């Protein structure tokens, strides 16, 4: 089972805080990878919030291909972050890790943001298609104010390898996942968190309904619903589909992935009629667990929810201005030791916990009380 550590804060913090939280949950894990997605960036990216950042890794050939492609498409490189690597035993360094801010051709400000998002996604997918066959280039995200880092290895080692303890890279939201490889190959594109157009999730556990969900999403005609090197990628795409594509309020994500099973439960909801229709039409997106899902949305809201059997651990705790969403309580202890532990929240099968942007307010929404 993978380890999950997310922190949302009013102030910028180092991703190392989340990695250290992962470290407290290390016992028994093989450390088969670390994935980090940072949102609302500080440090050297603080002044570049309007520019999309392309995150990835590539070989010399891959970087040349990337440069040529971006130049041809009219993207202008504004800023390039390339971590200074610190050799760590067990991590085989790839040639060029990067996070690059680009000025978009024709400026995003002049068109609808959704169109701009589509253009950025299309660019990322084309780059992925170019670099994936010979694995010369991996690109994880291309979006304003979002940075993604992934590598195979023990999370703490990976953090040190990238020099994340230097404090140069900071953010207000950090999702960190310490991978415990199970059924799928150790592959960078299989590494959580998964990000699509502002929506991001990471998960522990295995998704037993993966194949039908993948087939359903693939049939939606949306080019971003692809990849699926991990069964957990569908959680991010379901979130994107529910909120962005169908325009449903965030909490309905819970009703999509774990719909109420009994008519008696549905009937007590004030939106019962809508739920009944949703349960039929969105039936293929129902997950069967066991999964704890942690994610964020474009506005900076973070959430945690569980599968309908509540078979995975998950806890939310913190103080106003800083909250941690972790798969184990020792991780919360590490990230926010000063909190009142009695207020920790352990979301159960019906719960959907959201934390507003900048960690101002925690809300527990119970699915039975909608």
């Amino acid at each position, binding site marked *: 089972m993978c380890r999950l550590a997310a922190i949302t804060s009013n102030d910028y913090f180092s991703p190392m805080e989340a990695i250290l939280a992962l470290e407290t949950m290390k016992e028994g894990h093989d450390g088969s990878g670390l994935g980090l997605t940072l949102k609302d960036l500080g440090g050297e990216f603080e002044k570049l919030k309007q520019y999309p950042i392309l995150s990835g890794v590539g070989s010399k050939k891959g970087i040349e291909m990337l440069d040529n492609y971006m130049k041809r498409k009219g993207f202008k490189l504004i800023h390039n972050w390339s971590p200074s690597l610190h050799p760590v035993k067990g991590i085989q360094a790839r040639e060029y890790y990067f996070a690059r801010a680009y000025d978009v051709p024709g400026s995003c400000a002049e068109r609808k943001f959704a169109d701009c998002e589509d253009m950025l996604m299309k660019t990322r997918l084309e780059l992925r298609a170019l670099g994936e066959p010979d694995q010369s280039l991996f690109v994880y995200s291309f979006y304003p104010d979002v940075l993604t880092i992934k590598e195979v290895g023990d999370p703490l080692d990976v953090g040190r390898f990238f020099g994340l303890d230097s404090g140069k890279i900071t953010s207000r939201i950090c999702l960190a996942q310490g991978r415990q490889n199970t059924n799928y190959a150790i592959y960078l594109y299989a590494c959580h968190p998964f990000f699509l157009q502002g929506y991001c999730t990471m998960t522990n556990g295995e998704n037993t309904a993966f194949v039908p969900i993948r087939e359903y999403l693939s049939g939606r005609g949306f080019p971003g619903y692809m990849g699926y090197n991990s069964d957990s990628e569908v959680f991010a795409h379901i979130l994107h589909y529910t909120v962005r594509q*169908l325009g449903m309020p965030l909490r309905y994500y819970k009703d999509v992935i774990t719909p109420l099973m009994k008519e008696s439960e549905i009937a007590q909801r004030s939106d019962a009629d*809508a739920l009944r229709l*949703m349960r039929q*039409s969105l*039936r293929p997106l129902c997950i069967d667990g066991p999964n704890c899902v942690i994610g964020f949305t474009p506005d900076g809201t973070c959430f945690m929810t569980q599968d*309908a059997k509540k078979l995975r651990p998950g806890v939310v705790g913190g103080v106003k201005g800083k909250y941690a969403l972790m798969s184990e309580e020792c991780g919360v202890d590490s990230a926010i030791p000063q909190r009142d532990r009695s207020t920790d929240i352990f979301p159960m099968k019906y719960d959907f916990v959201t934390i507003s942007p900048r960690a101002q307010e925690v809300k527990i929404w119970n699915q039975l009380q909608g």
Partner: protein
Amino acid sequence: MEPAAGVTLDNNHRLTPKELQYIIRWNSDRCKRCGRCTAACPVKAIEPTVRVQRMTFSEGPIPKPGAQRRVVHAISQVTDPERACVGCATCTLVCPNEAIEPELNERNKLLHYKNKGGDGYKRGGRRNDPSISVLDRLKFTRISMLTDPALDAGRHEFRVRSLLGRVLPPEELPLKAVDGKLIVDSAADKFIPPVREIFPIMIGSMSVGALSPPMWEGLAMGVAYLNEVEGLPVVMASGEGGMPPRLLRSRYLKYFIIQIASGYFGWDEIVRALPHMVEDPAAIEIKYGQGAKPGDGGLLMAQKVLKLISGIRGVPQFVDLASPPTHQTKYSIEEAVAKMIQSMSMAWGFRVPVYPKISGTKTARAVLNNLARNPYAAALSIDGEDGGTGAAYNVSMDKMGHPIASNLRECYLDLVKQGKQNELPLIAAGGVGKRGNLAANAAALIMLGASVVSIGKYIMQAAADCFGDEHNRCNLCNTGKCPRGITTQDPKLYRRLDADKVALRTVEVFKAANVELKKIFAPMGRSTELPIGMSDGLSIDDKAMAERLGITYAC
């Protein structure tokens, strides 16, 4: 050649029992000559006879064997192919001394002779292929253990339910968000097709007429009990030939799918009952084909058209009731499918799902794609070659038709390509439970893409002890002489069947299937929704089959 005039023929012109499919094994020593077997035999394959027999005997205190020729009573097997033993073993059942039983003769030549009068061999039953079907070769190989905990079939909540009816794609749902809450937007004036939530195994179409009154009633009572008492929403299709008028006007109608086929039998009564219906039926099934006899219409032989049946169907007694192979008023797929679906929908105010049933065929995808574009089409039912029938030519049953597994799979994958796999449910039938593995066969079809699985022969065997099997045993459904009283309208025969017991067995069968489905889904980590299309859970021990079905090969 000169006839052998004036010469008494010996027996050389007759067939021997070895040419027949079943050979009667009769034990003279055990037989007490009561005559029950010959009276009960539905095809008169055995008859009492006398023969002269040389017997050795000894009388007196000292053994002194002597021979004597005596006339004895015996049972002899008739070798006329028209009266060939069908292996039903009714004789064995009625024999008080276990003196008689039929034995399967694998080397028989029955089909060489079964065409008397220039007509082909007609029978009821199913394809005579006793080999292990693809459904029975499919294995569930994705077992959750450590990376994802297996569920507990007895402890966790399970929802073994499916949807029957056209499901709107999420993009077309008439929903709008108001104050963070979704409401149904009535101003959108969007047609929301009717959808029924049902148990994923249903009883397929078998008509009043094909089935005897206690059999049909027994099934119907069982289905009503399952719904009302057990909370299992099992539905049953009527078959062509209408339904008992009182049932049409009852609140139980909601558990029944009414079938309309090319003969429109029974529809006078149904249309007359329409204004008096207090509930809508579960669905309307338009039959275009049947897996057991693709390309054939329905057929109820004259001997089964007694008073009750003639009344329900609105026809004279004792006439063959043949439904044509196609709907005679329709000349194209647009006419046959689109207009008929719309007409039937309109009859119930668009409150009832209407779907066509076709026989398994290479052309199923063409029908499917037509339906996928028709917003009123509620499902597609595909009946594979291993389906059953009350009456058909043997050649149709044995040689015509398409296996259900690959036919269903290609249809499902076609829907996947279009992203419509949740919009148009597929109902799969034909050979489900052939070897008794009802839940396993059903689960396998569901994982290949079926939303609902339909059974016929299985429930006749399980609920009413039908003798029929894939060795051509019995299969007398067409003759009106069903020795079990299942497919006959003769009161002397159907009084052998107790409708209450059929109902009880029906309930037991579905309750057990519900438990077994959970036992399959639980270790695969599925409980909340039916694992439709979860093909990663399946494997088969044949590479070509694995490739054709898009699943893994395991050995």
